[in-house]
């Protein structure tokens, strides 16, 4: 509710600023123009939204898969911990835009290179908390399990993995906003057949000097990120109900 009030105030200020001629509408369109575009271009926006939403959803899954695999690998292997972890941290400084053409060359056009780009942009916030949670399992609990006769595999599956699940979901939640940006980057950085998604649409609309439409696409991206965040909150409650829900739910 408070967020809605703040949003309204911001929009009001923005509208006033635009209407009083504070800025060229080609640079920053007024909110009402964006609203018109949302209404008038709804067909185009919707078609591109479904493309981007698919990339974001599947891309997040790819990011979680990469992140989880790396976390487990680093957890189990001293070699990976020493050799791989520092490289991973360094890899986060590489602007993915640079390697996007390479991925397209390798994997061709279509959704696969895009998912990989999203995965590469977003896996890191999954690795770090998941790995920390795996390593933070109480050493006394591990001793206890040994005296109860648990194998290393059982210890992982029965105790370490469930202990790390909330952290994994948290990591995915942190990734969500980046996932949307990753999808936009992927669309802008790679060639596309047919409907290219909202990121593609933004580039196209800007080239057509239809800034309002570009901003309309951004509004939809924001909504997408919020919905994904809420979905992950729901996932956490379903999969890890023992973690206390946050005292005040942020979204949904």
């Amino acid at each position, binding site marked *: 509710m408070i967020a809605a009030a703040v949003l309204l105030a911001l929009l009001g200020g923005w509208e006033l600023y635009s209407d009083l001629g504070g800025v060229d509408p080609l640079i920053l369109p007024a909110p009402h123009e964006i609203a018109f575009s949302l209404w008038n271009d709804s067909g185009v926006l919707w078609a591109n939204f479904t493309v981007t939403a698919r990339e974001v959803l599947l891309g997040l899954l790819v990011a979680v898969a990469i992140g989880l695999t790396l976390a487990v690998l680093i957890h189990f292997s001293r070699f990976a911990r020493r050799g791989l972890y520092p490289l991973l941290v360094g890899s986060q400084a590489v602007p993915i835009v640079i390697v996007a053409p390479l991925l397209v060359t390798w994997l061709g056009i279509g959704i696969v290179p895009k998912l990989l780009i999203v995965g590469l942009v977003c896996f890191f916030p999954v690795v770090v908390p998941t790995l920390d949670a795996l390593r933070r399992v*109480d050493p*006394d609990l591990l*001793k206890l399990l040994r*005296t*109860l*006769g648990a194998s290393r595999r059982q210890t992982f599956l*029965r105790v370490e993995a469930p202990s790390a699940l909330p952290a994994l979901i948290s990591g995915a939640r942190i990734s969500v906003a980046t996932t949307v940006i990753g999808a936009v980057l992927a669309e802008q950085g790679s060639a596309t057949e047919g409907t290219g998604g909202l990121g593609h649409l933004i580039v196209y609309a800007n080239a057509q000097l239809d800034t309002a439409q570009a901003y309309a696409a951004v509004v939809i991206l924001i909504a997408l990120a919020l919905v994904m965040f809420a979905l992950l909150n729901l996932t956490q409650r379903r999969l890890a109900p*023992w973690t206390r829900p946050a005292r005040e739910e942020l979204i949904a």
Partner: protein
Amino acid sequence: MPITAQARAGESRRSPAGPAAVEVIGVAVTYRPRGRDPVAALRDMTLRVSPGEVVGVVGPSGCGKSTLLELVCGLRRPDEGRSEAEPAALMPQRDLLLPWLSALDNAALAPSLHGMGKEAAREQARPLFSRFGLAGFEDARPAELSGGMRQRVAFLRTLLAGKPLLALDEPFAGLDALTRREMQDWLTEALAIEPRTVVLVTHDVEEAVILCDRVIVMGPRPGRAVAELGVAASRPRRRDDATLVLLREQAASALGLAG
């Protein structure tokens, strides 16, 4: 006695090798933390426990009591001396129940690890819930249980490991005084129903005297046994029993506490 029957082959209650359930003889353990001076946790520590005996180990904080239990549980090898024990199940001070499992599934953890189906493991644990004052709490999550209840579940989990020896590491130290007393009485009853060899580590002299057949007093680090007291009183014991009060004072003075 479904529990004793469940002890796996080779884990018979009486070790065929000898009469002792625990033989820790002349043991030294030294921790060597990287970049810091080594710490001698135990030096020339000896502990013998006969099958079926309940032995208390009391000592000041940091005297190596927990290290002793790690030796008994086979989690650590001594640097010097000999340490042998029957297979032991550990009950740590904090209950360490798994928050995503029900109380019943937590208690049934050990059977479920040994290739038994979930339901079969539950069926092993279920009768114990009613016998040990936990009826109706089978499906409760650990977060919904009181501290005393959680320790009961943790104890059942230890019991259901089916090991002949129980290593209890300050099991009631985290409870308030009233609950602690309740739990001590509860444990006495539980051991009367399911007799086991027990090594109970505690810093509470009264607890050791109330619960145990024999009390070993350890000196400060590096820990070793400095006194041994036999507790002959029959069970159930009264806390104000003159013999027990006297023993308590003896143990306290051996610990160096003013009587």
